[in-house]
């Protein structure tokens, strides 16, 4: 640890800018973004291993790889991991790194809260996983339907209730941070309708989080009280109602689907124009479609409950709302096609993943519409058809989109380009593996295979497609290995990227790679949508595009001689990482021993007290 200057807080202020202390105490949105993505990728590998175990068990009838007990823990943790510890934080990580850069800001609005969010997320994830070593992981499904979830033995589902609660804190704080940052910290001239689509989708996602997280928080508290303190929210024998949980869970759960997919939609809305050498088709429509999805996403939750017996009127209403949310979703797909139309398409790896997203999302979107057909949904609900559908949306969609973003912005973050060769191998293996794994699940579901079953007998006609799905899962695993090799190899051998390797359109490409701590030597003044592109090119009246300066990129390298001298940046702090453990300690207290609740609460309180006293910047 470097020498610290005393600065009137509880602690000497950390000053390290390199080395691992700099990562622990950082409040720099870029470092936090990298931490988010690295953590999410680590959890991606763990969740993937769980998936492989599940697929191995189901490769043949009467599989013996996993017991029913382990299987239930694995499928629950696979879902929780991929949703809360992979797709959401990967999106948040990319937002973290990019959002300030794309709007011309030097950091997020609340840098220390940003760091706190990350540590809470990390510790929440570790808390959840610690259950494996403390008697068994959650085993009631990610959807945790009561009253099964209130009475499953062991502490698994209590870890679920408390772990998601902790992760929810991280999400809520992140949401507030991004809303304030995007609304208040845009560079001069960056009007709302000049913002990159990714920023728009980040904003919509943040609002969805802001309103969805409190709903699940209520449900989780009720579950916790039912389990730990013998309350009766969901027990019908004592006046509770199991359907209450379902309404609360899906009122959160469906917006959650859009929380996962909208950032990926934003990413590809920036990737497709760059590699088509064209502006996005129908910017306003794509933005308003995103907002419309954000609103309509609140009115479709009961399509998860068509078999509950809500009655024909409620079922019809939710069938209609579910059908019509497909309209703004369709608008987005058509706009992406319009963006590529008459373009000059360059099939670099980010573009391949973006195209993969569009193609797979068409399938996921169409199968989504079929869920609105209530009578046939009564056949398909809770079968592998549903598993197929949401993997086409969340893997074929979100994960492909997030990988597109990783390949696209990797050079901005690390200054080096990921290998195109390995990137293409990664894409094609993943594309083929994905379709082999999840395509057949449509057929399995229609042929009557229910989900969440640890075994199936011979003679049901399900053997072939289960085997194919398992082969596909392992091909996906190989593709992820290729990606990891690519990442490691790029660190040593990667090609220097320069500031603007893709001929980018948005502000982040106007600053050097990796982006300096202060982001921009001078805060940019924005004059147009795709401002950076317009600084590089002029469109003549006959639609001919000509570079402003020979060689294209401007402004990218000119500030290298001036390493941001005199720019005030938020100072690193110990307090976020000190405050965060308070939450999991309190949670362990709920499970094991109440004095720990006091200990964790005091730690949190004291750290926040120090936080209040600590100035956000170090005076010179």
């Amino acid at each position, binding site marked *: 640890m470097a020498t610290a200057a005393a600065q009137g807080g509880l602690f000497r202020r950390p000053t390290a800018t390199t080395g691992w202390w700099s990562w622990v105490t950082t409040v720099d949105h870029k470092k936090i973004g990298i931490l988010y993505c690295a953590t999410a990728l680590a959890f991606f590998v763990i969740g993937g291993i769980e998936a492989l175990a599940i697929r191995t068990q189901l490769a043949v009838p009467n599989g013996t790889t996993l017991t*029913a*007990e382990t299987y239930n823990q694995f499928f629950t943790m696979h879902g929780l991991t991929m949703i809360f510890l992979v797709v959401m934080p990967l999106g948040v990580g990319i937002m973290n790194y990019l959002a300030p850069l794309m709007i011309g800001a030097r950091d997020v609005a609340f840098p220390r809260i940003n760091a706190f969010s990350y540590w809470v997320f990390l510790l929440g994830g570790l808390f959840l996983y610690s259950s494996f070593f403390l008697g068994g992981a959650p085993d*009631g*499904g990610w959807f945790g*339907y009561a*009253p*099964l979830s209130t009475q*499953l033995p062991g502490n698994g589902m209590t870890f679920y209730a408390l772990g998601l609660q902790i992760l929810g804190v991280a999400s809520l704080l992140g949401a507030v941070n991004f809303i304030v940052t995007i609304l208040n910290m845009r560079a001069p001239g960056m009007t709302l309708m000049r913002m990159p689509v990714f920023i728009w989708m980040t904003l919509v996602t943040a609002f969805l989080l802001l309103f969805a997280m409190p709903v699940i928080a209520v449900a989780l508290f009720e579950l916790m009280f039912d389990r730990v303190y013998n309350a009766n929210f969901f027990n*019908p*024998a004592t006046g509770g109602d199991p359907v209450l949980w379902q309404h609360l869970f899906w009122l959160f759960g469906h917006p959650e689907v859009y929380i996962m997919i909208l950032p990926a939609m934003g990413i590809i809305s920036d990737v497709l124009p760059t590699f088509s050498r*064209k502006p*996005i*088709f*129908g*910017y*306003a*429509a794509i933005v308003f479609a995103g907002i419309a999805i954000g609103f309509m996403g609140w009115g479709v939750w009961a399509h998860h409950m068509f*078999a*509950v*017996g809500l009655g*024909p009127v409620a*079922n*019809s209403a939710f*069938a209609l709302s579910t059908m*019509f949310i497909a*309209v703004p979703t*369709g608008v987005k797909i*058509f706009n992406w*096609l319009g963006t*590529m*139309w*008459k*373009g*000059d*398409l*360059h*099939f670099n790896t980010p573009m391949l993943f973006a195209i993969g997203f*569009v*193609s797979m999302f068409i399938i996921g979107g*169409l199968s989504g*519409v*079929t869920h*609105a*057909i*209530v*009578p*046939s949904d*009564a*056949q398909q609900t*809770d*079968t592998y058809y549903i598993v197929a559908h949401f993997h086409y949306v969340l893997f074929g969609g979100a994960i492909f989109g997030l990988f597109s973003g990783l390949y696209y912005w990797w050079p901005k973050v690390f200054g080096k380009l990921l290998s195109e060769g390995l990137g293409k191998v990664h894409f094609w293996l993943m594309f083929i593996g994905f379709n082999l794994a999840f395509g057949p699940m449509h057929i399995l579901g*229609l042929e*009557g295979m*229910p989900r*969440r*079953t640890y*075994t199936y007998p011979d*003679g049901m*006609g399900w053997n072939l497609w289960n085997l194919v799905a398992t082969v596909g899962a392992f091909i996906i695993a190989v593709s992820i290995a290729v990606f990891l090799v690519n990442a490691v190899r790029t660190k040593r051998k990667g090609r220097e990227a320069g500031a603007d390797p893709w001929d980018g359109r948005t502000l982040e490409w106007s600053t050097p790679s990796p982006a300096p701590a202060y982001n921009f030597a001078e805060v940019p003044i924005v004059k147009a949508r795709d401002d950076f592109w317009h600084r590089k090119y002029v469109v003549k009246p006959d639609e001919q*595009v000509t570079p402003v300066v020979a060689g294209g990129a401007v402004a990218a390298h000119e500030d290298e001689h001036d390493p941001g001298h005199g720019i005030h940046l938020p100072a690193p702090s110990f307090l976020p990482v000190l405050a965060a453990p308070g939450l999991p300690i309190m949670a362990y207290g709920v499970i094991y021993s109440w004095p720990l609740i006091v200990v964790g609460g005091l730690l949190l309180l004291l750290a926040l007290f120090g936080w209040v006293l600590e100035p956000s910047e170090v005076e010179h």
Partner: protein
Amino acid sequence: MAKTKPAYSRTFTRRAVRGALVLLLLLSATACARSEDVPQSSLEPAGEFARAPDVLWNVTLAIAAVVFVLVQGVLVFALIRFRHKEGRKAAQFHGNTKVEVALTVVPALILAGLAIPTVGTIFDLQGDPATDVMRVEVIAHQFWWEFNYPEQGVTTANELHIPVDQEVVLELQGAATDAVDGNAEVIHSFWIPRLGGAQDMIPGHTNFLRISADEPGRFMGQCKEFCGLSHANMRVVAYSHTQEDFDAWVEEQNAPAAENASGDAGAGQELFTETFDVRSTVVEEGADAYQCASCHAVQPGVEVPLRTGPNLTHFASRSTFAGATFENNAENLAAWLRDPHGVRPGSKMPALDLSEDEINDLVAYLQSLE
């Protein structure tokens, strides 16, 4: 624009088309090869309440297939046609209002077209049942089904028998508490795909599901809502009979249980009411010793009031047992009695301290209960 296409692009297109055709052939070949043996398929409806969803599904699938081919076709075309080559210039347009409006309105119209038959069918399926229906009460337990026929006085488990061409209304009763351990009962979902869609069974609620079968047959189904360790082993079988066969079945079920004075079966009958120590149980509270008879009735139409297991009066007339998980034969029965939790995780039947001889006798007794 496309005046001087280079030769490689034509071969590329041709190769792509040929590849797609081969893939399609392979897919349709596998699709045809498997129509035989899918006993639980929702695509093989066997009664009107399964056919209505199937008709809607077929319409939706056809529309979706057309949309799929069109949209993916446009995508693939654009990828090939507009891929980068020397000298290509991207057109710099920002949108096209007419196209955008059209592409918003057309899908909305298609969806509106789908909505009409959907809502119609929802009300048809959940509307008032016909007057001459047959009623069966269904109660779901972890992990088996209890069927009570109030009009016929029959109580049975895991195997549902119905007459053909008869609308049957299943009264799906969500028990509030589990009869064995007194905990809240969990949610189950009743589903026999070839006879109709699924309907959840929620503790404290009663739902109704209409089913019917056109022909005599055997139909597989299983619990569809995750309900714990043996959710995968909570299966159900339905038999449809001609009216005469159904009446005969009812009569048979209402006959008193077989009496066994001697032999292995006789010994088994005595063991049935003897008290055994419990070797292991998934139920934490409760006695440490049980009789078979404390949970299982061997008398027509009777439930054991406190600790309820399936009524076994005519056990040997069933083709399966334990949530229709196992074929009903001596070997499977012995394995089940030896280690119920080993063969069926989480089952609420306790493992009793039985010797091999006792297992033998009990199996013989169970097999005598025709």
